[in-house]
């Protein structure tokens, strides 16, 4: 029996890698093609990419980075939008444009942190609950029931109120409030998959439970989880903004978008630019994520594919 595996030379390495991953590559190409059919999703994605780039390079892009971060500029208080200050100045004279740029940076960072937290907690718990069933399932599901019984925002508010205001506590509170949805989602998938013949086959082959959950069950949960996440991120951003608005989240002088709306609330009828641009930023960001989520659903939802 001759081994037909080619030796790995340096030039052959890339070719070999491409061969090994050909299935995944062609599927990715196919997915991208499907995604690009949804024009709104493409626009949304482009917008998000743009915003992310701006957020990352905030110190360079923002015209007045110090003011963005909070330094006052009392000379130019409440000036309307002008050439030097395209979004106008707020009540402390700070450039609203720079503030919005730094604000989106914060929103995205917090949202990302919440997303990571929710996935790290919710997905494995859901997978374990669904796969093992029995008392493990019961315990985890009762905990999720408990948390889900509370209206999410009220619960988040209560948690932040207890632990003290600040973006870090907001992030933690949101993770606690949100992970049960994902645990539920993944548990459902896990339950339906554990009876599949290929999972049974893996058990007969002696594959250990944690490996089965990791290799067979969770990969199938990735799609629905990502779709749900992109749709939820909008809600998270809004929740962060909302909590900041009522004073539980970011504290001044942090350029949080919700805080900016709160601070601009008093001036809204005359110096509208303080609040409106921040509000618009939130609106467009959430909308973009929703579009992308819809587009991803077409790609990743196993029911609408193939």
């Amino acid at each position, binding site marked *: *029996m001759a*081994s*037909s*595996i080619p030796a790995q030379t340096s030039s052959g390495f890339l070719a070999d890698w491409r*061969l*090994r*991953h*050909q*299935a995944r590559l062609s599927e990715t190409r196919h997915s991208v093609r499907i995604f690009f059919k949804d024009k709104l999703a493409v626009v949304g994605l482009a917008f998000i990419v743009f915003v992310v780039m701006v957020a990352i390079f905030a110190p360079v892009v923002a015209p007045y980075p110090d003011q963005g971060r909070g330094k006052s500029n009392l000379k130019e208080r409440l000036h309307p939008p002008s050439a030097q200050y395209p979004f106008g100045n707020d009540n402390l004279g700070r450039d609203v444009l720079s503030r919005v740029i730094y604000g989106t940076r914060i929103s995205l960072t917090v949202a990302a942190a919440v997303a990571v937290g929710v996935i790290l907690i919710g997905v494995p718990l859901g997978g374990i609950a669904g796969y093992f*069933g*029995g008392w493990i*399932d019961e315990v985890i599901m009762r905990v999720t029931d408990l948390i889900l019984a509370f209206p999410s925002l009220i619960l988040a508010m209560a948690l932040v109120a207890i632990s003290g205001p600040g973006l870090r506590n907001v992030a933690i509170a949101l993770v606690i409030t949100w992970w049960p949805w994902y645990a539920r989602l993944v548990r459902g998938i896990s339950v339906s998959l*554990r*009876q*599949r*013949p*290929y999972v*049974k*086959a*893996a*058990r*007969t*082959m*002696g*594959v*250990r439970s944690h*490996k089965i959950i990791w*290799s*067979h069950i969770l*990969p*199938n949960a990735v799609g629905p989880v990502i779709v749900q996440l992109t749709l939820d991120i909008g809600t998270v951003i809004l929740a962060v903004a909302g909590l900041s608005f009522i004073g539980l989240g970011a504290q001044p002088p942090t350029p949080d978008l919700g805080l900016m709306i709160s601070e601009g609330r008093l001036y809204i009828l005359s110096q509208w630019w303080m609040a409106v641009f921040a509000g618009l930023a939130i609106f467009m960001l959430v909308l973009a994520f929703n579009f992308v989520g819809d587009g991803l659903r077409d790609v990743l939802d196993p029911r609408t594919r*193939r």
Partner: protein
Amino acid sequence: MSLLSVENLTVHFKVRRGLSKKSMLVVHAVDDVTFGVDAGETLALVGESGSGKTTVAEAMLQLNKPTSGRVCFEDRSVTDLSAKERRAMKRRVQIVFQDPYSSLDPRMTVHDLVAEPLRALGRMSGKELEERVVSLLEMVGLGTQHLWRRSHEFSGGQCQRIAIARAIALEPDVVVLDEPTSALDVSVLARILVLLHELKERLGLSYLLVAHDLAVVESVADKVAVMYLGKIVEEGPATELFSRPRHPYTVALLASVPSPDPEQRSRLGVLPGDVPSAVDPPAGCRFHPRCAYRLDICSQTAPEMLQAPGGTRRACHLPLETLPVAKGLEDRHAMFESVALAEPAPAFGEGAETAAAVMRGEAIDPEDVPRDREGLD
């Protein structure tokens, strides 16, 4: 000494129908089943929906927990072993499932699918693993060009080959074949049977064939055990069973197989009614409501499994002479001519819907409940 056997195996599943403990129903999937697969032989476990044959096979693979009785490997009870030893035992019995597509993870490449058992129990890696995967694929007639593709790119027959390669990867002693050909076309089925035959000879395998297609069984099996509603009704060498069935259910089963020869008119509709519920099996002999030859005793006492001529065993109250006999294979259809028709049994009984729901895997109870053939995947 049998290679792989079950002794007094009983598997009951609990199904909760409501919230209270009182509404617990018990599905008697397998009741007191004893038989064994000897080295180098193919034993066919035959039965229809609700017979429990899949449950028995899964018990042998440690995929469910028997309520009582033992699963033995070379006469050593598997249940007596420690968890670690039980896991090590898994490499000696492997399975090929009925539906080639759902038995392969659609996200994995052929390479990873075949490598999975080698990595898990075989503890292989690196070059050794790669070479073994390639050689296994060659054994089933696939090549390296298939290595990195996914199952949906292949035909049913090819997928079944991948599943077979995966099953023999750990060099098992027994391979359970769960209706390996029922999802395949005739021409593809033939190739798979030929492949299985070759592998059996080449690797010294024994097969436990779980099947309902009697033509395939007759062609492949050395021994046959017929199951009905959780019990074995008849067991013996294939040649004996097919030429001279000694249980009314076996007779009905054989008579129902449509022959591809239009001049040999099969008796259609010989067995009326449906399989009763496994939640509430009939008293006495479980087959008696549908049996054309039933006696009074059949509804009262369950028959014991006794030795019969020809190296067979049967569980039936009827004296052997009552059943029609064929003198040879040509005579078989003439034999079925004389089979009496039973009166149709009542349409459905209590709990039929529960059993059907359980069989489809809709049990509320989180315990594993297998699907039987009734399930329409």
